[in-house]
């Protein structure tokens, strides 16, 4: 019923209690959280985890109730067991609660979930276009492709302070372009304008995108016009993250829905009915 993505055989997810090792400011509106998760399975770029703080604080509380989906930014080394890094933007109640947790406290993590990004052909030219929270979803992909592919990363946000992970991308030594609405960093304007410019060269290219729905929709349109394959990683609301609540449905052009958590989060952008995506 749905085109298979990704070559790798993925590990089964686990539910674990993670130790917060760090939870520091990242830019003006985001946080970088480091979590020690004993025996966290291996994961592939594009996979995510469901995080929640509330139910585990000393004062067991039920509001906000639902865990929040977050990309697994990357694996890191930490004493005593595997550890992962999460970069998140503080947008509302769930992420504010995460932001309150201090090193030494615990959070609940379920993952790795979802499917990996598909592999581009080795050597193939790859453009990664990311904005807002979506930036965190593509770093691991960029890190994996830097050696195998000729890679350019285009990052966008409203303003410089909203950007995250820029230094990490720079440290990859890849081609990096930034656009902000107010021009406070990089070019003034939309990251999608950078995409249009980049696609003017005739080379065959594969585009990966993650970010606000408007931005991804625009990417999909630009790529369709340029006849370039585009992979979009969606960020729907989720309750479970593993295919049982049916809450994360993304409408498909051919009718019906895909589940972002189970069939994605990465999809061929041409399959998504962007107009009907919340």
């Amino acid at each position: 019923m749905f085109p298979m993505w990704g070559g790798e055989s993925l590990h089964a997810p686990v539910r674990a209690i993670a130790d917060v090792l760090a939870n520091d400011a990242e830019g003006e509106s985001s946080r970088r959280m480091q979590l020690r998760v004993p025996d966290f399975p291996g994961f592939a770029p594009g996979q995510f985890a469901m995080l929640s703080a509330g139910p585990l604080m000393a004062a067991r509380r039920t509001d906000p109730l639902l865990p929040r989906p977050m990309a697994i930014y990357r694996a890191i080394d930490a004493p005593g067991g595997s550890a992962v890094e999460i970069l998140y933007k503080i947008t509302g109640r769930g992420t504010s609660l995460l932001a309150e947790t201090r090193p030494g406290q615990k959070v609940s993590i379920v993952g790795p979930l979802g499917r990996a990004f598909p592999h581009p052909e080795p050597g193939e030219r790859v453009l990664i276009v990311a904005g807002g929270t979506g930036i965190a979803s593509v770093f691991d992909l960029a890190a994996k492709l830097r050696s195998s592919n000729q890679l350019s990363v285009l990052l966008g946000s409203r303003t410089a302070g909203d950007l995250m992970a820029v230094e990490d991308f720079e440290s990859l030594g890849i081609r990096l372009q930034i656009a902000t609405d107010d021009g406070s960093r990089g070019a003034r304007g939309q990251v999608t304008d950078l995409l249009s410019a980049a696609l003017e060269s005739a080379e065959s290219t594969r585009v990966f995108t993650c970010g606000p729905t408007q931005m991804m929709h625009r990417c999909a349109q630009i790529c369709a016009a340029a006849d370039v394959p585009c992979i979009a990683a969606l960020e729907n609301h989720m309750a479970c993250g593993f295919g049982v609540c049916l809450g994360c449905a993304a409408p498909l052009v051919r009718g019906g829905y895909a589940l972002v958590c189970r069939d994605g989060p990465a999809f061929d952008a041409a399959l998504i009915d962007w107009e009907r995506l919340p």
Partner: protein
Amino acid sequence: MSDATSVDTSVDLGGIPLRNPVLAASGTFGYGTEFSPFLDLRRLGGFVAKSLTLEPRVGNPPPRIAEAPSAMLNAISLENVGVDEFIRTKLPAIPDGVTVIASAFETEIDRYAEVCARLSGVPRIAGLEINASCPHVKSGGIEFGQDPAVLAQLVAAARRATIGPLLVKLSPNVTHIAEMARVCEGEGADGVSLINAVQALEIDTATRRPVLANGLGGLSGPAIRPIALRMVWQAAQAVSIPICGIGGIESADDAIKFLLAGATAVQVGTANYLRPAIGGEIADGMAAYAREHACERLVDLVGKLELPSR
């Protein structure tokens, strides 16, 4: 009594023998196998599979879910693979030794009966639960479970369609839950499950629209637990068939409350999303409670709520 094995956790839910009183609720546990990575499904008393219709059904447009204080709202509609596909592919995938209850939903009584008939007598299916209460399917707005006469017809038709254990899942959106439970008992149901999600509305003041594309949705999670507990207690005063208590259960302590109120077993719903192994943890916790309180059989707790002496 410090040894786990010394507590008898088994219960009989209207002819469905359960190794412990903890079931996973329909629509929150998929078709079971989704949870295999997180727990051995045999740690549960069993689970109720996603409600099934005659044909496969596509759900509502998104947004389908939202958060509310200590709760979530959903308007999934009854997206499911259909009864035949369930029997052909989903059921065989469920590990042996896992007790499976199938759930039936339809928009007309004869279709309900047909779903029940197809599920009836299928090996591996320990019993049926008919969902008379989906709060967001627009069957003329009003739910089967909201009208005693309609509910009676539905239960009677389902009863004719299956010889096996038959549970009826009640809607909380009623004036007299006890009356609805009596109707089910009268028409030959072997038990009642309650409550389903409570009909609710959440609005986004920025867009001035409901947050759910469907408009109304079903409220579930801890917020509704005190309402569910009240309804289970009221139903238990009215009928002698066993009751399966549902609503906001997130701990063994919560589950014990439902037993004390009169439930023979419980179903865990929304909490499965937050903590996929919670059903097993609750089952263990209930046994621990029994040990601490020198109670040899969990069934001995059923209906043991002490009421104010007035």
